[in-house]
């Protein structure tokens, strides 16, 4: 428990954030959010803020309510008590959905064998409103750009059912990117994907974050790859969320404590992320 107190940067920062809650550089803020599925809360009195251009990796053991937290952030779930604000407005009244992109945890599992090409799937993320059937020029351009950004132009005519896990994740990323969102929320995008593809994926996220200024919140178990590229780490455990603004303060011991087990390959990741090479 020592680390929860000593490294709980988010809690102290919270007070200051509140005075300027209309500040536009706030992407998401949760204030006193409690949420449970059947009575017993899985998140208790959570306070956190995601600012524009943040790159936050959320970690935590299975069942820690990471996915729940993300669904609350994007308004797929509504809090029992407390408040969630997206770009300054209450999530219940939020309507600018093109500003956020979300890829759910089971996106890939659910859709194996769906009879659509990569291009068709990515295009389905471009929704400009009811009955707008013929915005084809704008859509085609946006699709093309999203495919380029994620480097999968060469896959555009392939059936999504024929792709590997790593390729599929890029398709989902492109589908989320096609509406040119300001923030991306990705739930375990690299679980079940080989190490090389996973690394490539996080590098891509880092590029989007640095070059396009897209805010990234990503839930991950790929601690090594994510730590190398994320700017902040969020730990979800026991119904609480702690954001570490300075990634260097998160040591292997902290991660082991949060996850409840040690990760052998992590020492390599730490030896690189402790270097001041991070920009």
């Amino acid at each position, binding site marked *: 428990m020592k680390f929860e107190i000593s490294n709980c940067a988010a809690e102290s920062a919270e007070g200051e954030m509140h005075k300027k809650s209309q500040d536009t550089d706030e992407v998401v803020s949760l204030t006193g959010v409690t949420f449970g599925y059947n009575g017993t809360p899985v998140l208790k009195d959570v306070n956190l803020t995601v600012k524009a251009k943040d790159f936050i990796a959320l970690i935590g053991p299975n069942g820690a309510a990471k996915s729940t937290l993300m669904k609350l952030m994007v308004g797929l779930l509504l809090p029992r008590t407390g408040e969630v604000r997206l770009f300054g407005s209450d999530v219940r009244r939020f309507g600018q959905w093109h500003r956020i992109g979300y890829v759910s945890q089971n*996106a890939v599992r659910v859709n194996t064998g769906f*009879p659509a090409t990569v291009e068709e799937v990515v295009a389905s993320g471009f929704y400009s409103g009811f009955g707008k*059937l013929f915005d084809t020029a704008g859509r085609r351009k946006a699709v093309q750009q999203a495919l380029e950004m994620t480097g999968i132009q060469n896959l555009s*005519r392939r059936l999504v059912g024929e792709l590997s896990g790593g390729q599929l994740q890029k398709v989902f990323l492109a589908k989320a990117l096609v509406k040119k969102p300001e923030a991306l929320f990705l739930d375990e995008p690299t679980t079940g994907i080989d190490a090389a593809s996973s690394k490539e994926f996080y590098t891509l996220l880092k590029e989007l974050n640095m070059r396009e200024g897209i805010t990234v919140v990503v839930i991950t178990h790929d601690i090594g790859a994510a730590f190398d590229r994320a700017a902040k780490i969020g730990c979800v455990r026991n119904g609480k969320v702690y954001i570490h603004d300075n990634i260097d303060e998160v040591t292997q011991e902290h991660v082991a404590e949060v996850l409840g087990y040690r990760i052998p390959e992590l020492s390599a990741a730490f030896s690189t992320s402790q270097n001041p090479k991070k920009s």
Partner: protein
Amino acid sequence: MYILTFDFMQRALVAGVITAVLASSIGVFVVLRRMSLVGDSLSHAALSGVAAGMLFGFYPFYGALAFSALAALFIEYIRKAFERYAEVALAVVMSGGMGLAVVLISLGKSFNADLFSYLFGSLVAVSPSDAWIICGVGLFILLSLVILFRELFAIAFDEESARLSGIPVDAVNTYFTLLTALAVALSVRVVGTLLVSALMVIPAAVSLQTAKSFRATFGIAVGVAVFSVISGLYISFILNLAPGGTIVLIATAILMTVISTKKLQ
């Protein structure tokens, strides 16, 4: 093509082709949303509407339309209560509809040739006014599908992210189930209540085996359905068979051929 000189055959063909296009294009979405049984549920409800019409003396075809639309709304209502077990809603409506149909039929003691035509379809059953209803309502359904195509695709692919694109998912789902109900009721005249579902699911199954894009999925499903209906009507006329059964057998034969040639490759 001398069979086209019969008025009833012309009507059966027009009604059949419209039915085929509707059932198969709706069927693609239905199958992708893992609601393959929805056609069965709704057609059993339609059958109870037919029975109610025969018992209380209104036109059974209207009964089919009304009852299956009500059943559609009921399915959406139960589905919300069993979010993780959507099939429960389908099973409840299917058995409920069948139970109601059986009770109404036994009350009216109306097990006659007319009922038989509603069960298995009939070539001579499509009256001129039936044909007009099928054309009118069919056009309405097709237009709705075209307008909602992008929404339906997005929802079928990933409901959560469709919600996050700002699509009114619940409203679209309810409307779609209502369209399905209307399409099922329309199909009842030509293929019969017991076989409607097959005309939705089998062409979709063929296209899932072969299509290389979503657009092709639609094209293939509609093509298979239209071919099955036209050839089925023709054969059932020549050999004096029930059209519904003949149509479904042809579609099934196509599916089996596709699956086995795919296995051979």
